[in-house]
């Protein structure tokens, strides 16, 4: 949960809109309670049966907009992934990929890796989410579990700087090899230059007055 003041992106005296007094509280999804509905209970039960350390490994389970997210601790990620793939009643034989999300305001959990799993056998989808601190951005690589995650992990490393331990060749994939920084982090500037047209100047998108 975080708080945001005002309506425009300007703070201090720059805001002449009169909306500076607005206060908005942003809610993030909390942990969900059983029953989750649909096949989600079955998935959670089956994983719990197959993986004895379930309560220790799963931080929380969120069911939101008819999608199931398991928040996994990174120490257990590899084992959980293997169980999800191999247990007959789960059979998530495909991982559609992993991508990062950067939450700079979450202390000690700045970088999130989000995995989208698909079960062809049962026609189900679930999501795994793992949070790591910016100061120690290490995660186990899942290339051994799902080979196709190889490039996705490289992209997440490239864009967010999450290091996947055990990856067969964790190098940049989209940016040049000698690039500095990880472009999709929130503290990485978008860049751009002001554009002049018929005497008027438009600032780059990141510097325009914005409505949050």
């Amino acid at each position: 949960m975080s708080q945001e003041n005002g309506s425009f992106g300007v703070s201090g005296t720059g805001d002449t809109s009169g909306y500076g007094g607005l206060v908005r509280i942003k809610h993030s999804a909390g942990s969900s309670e059983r029953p989750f509905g649909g096949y989600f209970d079955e998935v959670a039960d089956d994983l719990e049966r197959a993986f004895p350390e379930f309560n220790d490994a799963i931080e929380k389970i969120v069911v939101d907009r008819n999608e199931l997210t398991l928040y996994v601790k990174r120490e257990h990620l590899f084992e959980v992934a293997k169980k999800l793939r191999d247990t007959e009643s789960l059979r998530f034989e495909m991982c559609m990929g992993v991508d990062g999300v950067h939450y700079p305001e979450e202390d000690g959990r700045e970088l999130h890796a989000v995995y989208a799993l698909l079960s062809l056998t049962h026609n189900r989808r679930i999501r795994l989410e793992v949070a790591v601190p910016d100061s120690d951005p290490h995660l186990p690589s899942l290339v051994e579990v799902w080979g196709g995650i190889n490039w996705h992990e490289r992209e997440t490393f490239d864009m967010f700087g999450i290091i996947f331990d055990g990856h067969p060749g964790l190098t940049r994939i989209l940016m040049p090899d000698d690039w500095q920084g990880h472009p999709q982090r929130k503290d990485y500037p978008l860049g751009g230059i002001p554009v002049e047209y018929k005497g008027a100047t438009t600032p780059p998108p990141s510097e325009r007055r914005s409505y949050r």
Partner: protein
Amino acid sequence: MSTHTDPYAQSRETTEGRVYAVTGGDWDSLSTEIGATKEERVVVNMGPQHPSTHGVLRIILELEGETVTEVRCGIGYLHTGIEKNTEYRSWTQGVTFVTRMDYLAPIFNETAYCLAVEKLLGITDEIPERASVIRVLMMELNRISSHMVALGTGALELGALSPMIFAFRERELVLDLFEMISGLRMNMAYVRPGGVAQDIPHGSIPKIRETVAQLRKNFKDNEKLLVGNTIWMKRTQNIGYLDLAGCTTLGITGPVLRSTGLPWDLRKTQPYCGYENYDFDVITTDSADVYGRFLIRMQELEQSLRIVEQACDKLEKLEGQPVMVADKKIAWPSQLSVGADGMGNSLDHIREIMGESMESLIHHFKLVTEGFRVPAGQVYVAVESPRGETGVHLVSDGGTRPYRVHFREPSFNNLQSTSAMCEGSMIADVIGAIASIDPVMGGVDR
């Protein structure tokens, strides 16, 4: 050897061995020079500027004679930072960006993105039926135009020129329809959160039906050229083999997965946009090779035509229904219309906001500059694009802009299978194998 020295085609010693630069036309001198050395193993850098690599794809091949021992893909030459850019624009503006990812399947990017925004907003059930039918119509037309490029360039890369001429002729017919409906032939930004940008113009259904009939007739030309053609079959059968186990572990979807015999098509297995109400078949083959994927694409054309026809029937019944969600806090206020000088802003709308209603102007201004807020949360939505599963992972923090947009691009994912398909094969077959994956670099690099 020529007497002058080409500064761009000189060879030099490195720690890895001797490096030769060739610029074309000097192959004879190169092969003479290499033939004189004792080296058995040659590493060839193919691309990123090479007509057979399907765009700016770089392929690094390790060869022993003509046999490929190792293949690696180098990508990133078309990285445009679209995902990052969308974080600085409103939710509606995002459509204009994502449509440029996989530029041969723009409608699929737009639809996947809009379905995700709608899911976050919780308005999936409120999308008017006419809008969903138009989306399906546009997607299936787009599948045809995309498959036409896949078939045409695929054949071209293997040395068959005529199929390309026919394929681009067919694609042109589809692009004409896009132009008639959306005003643009590519990158239309036609599908918007809440519906579509504008209704299909009056009298377009007969034109679409006419084109469908024309396409059905024209497709036979390519079929006659390639299906069962001995040379074509020799170049494609048992080439680029990847079985079901390989596909699942590599996360491969689309025609490559269906060529292993598994009828996995999201339109059937996890329907969206009302695909469950259409009658069509999922095409599979079990050869798991380039020829099988080629056959799948050929036959999917006919299935797409069937869906287009059914969509036309539905549209005739839904004449006059809305194409945008009723909630005016989400629906884009202005509409486009065809004027004397082509497609542009609707003059009726401009008259209303500029001359008749101050409230309309305020509403227009607020929605266009500020946009709407989307409740915090995250979703993953997938659609079956011509290349496989296009998935959108969308995160909102409750603001007027996306917090994170990630596209799970089928081209990006499927290109990983190059090594599995090509290692151990002949160098000439690498081209065919990659063409059968049908990667679009705009989607791969985003």
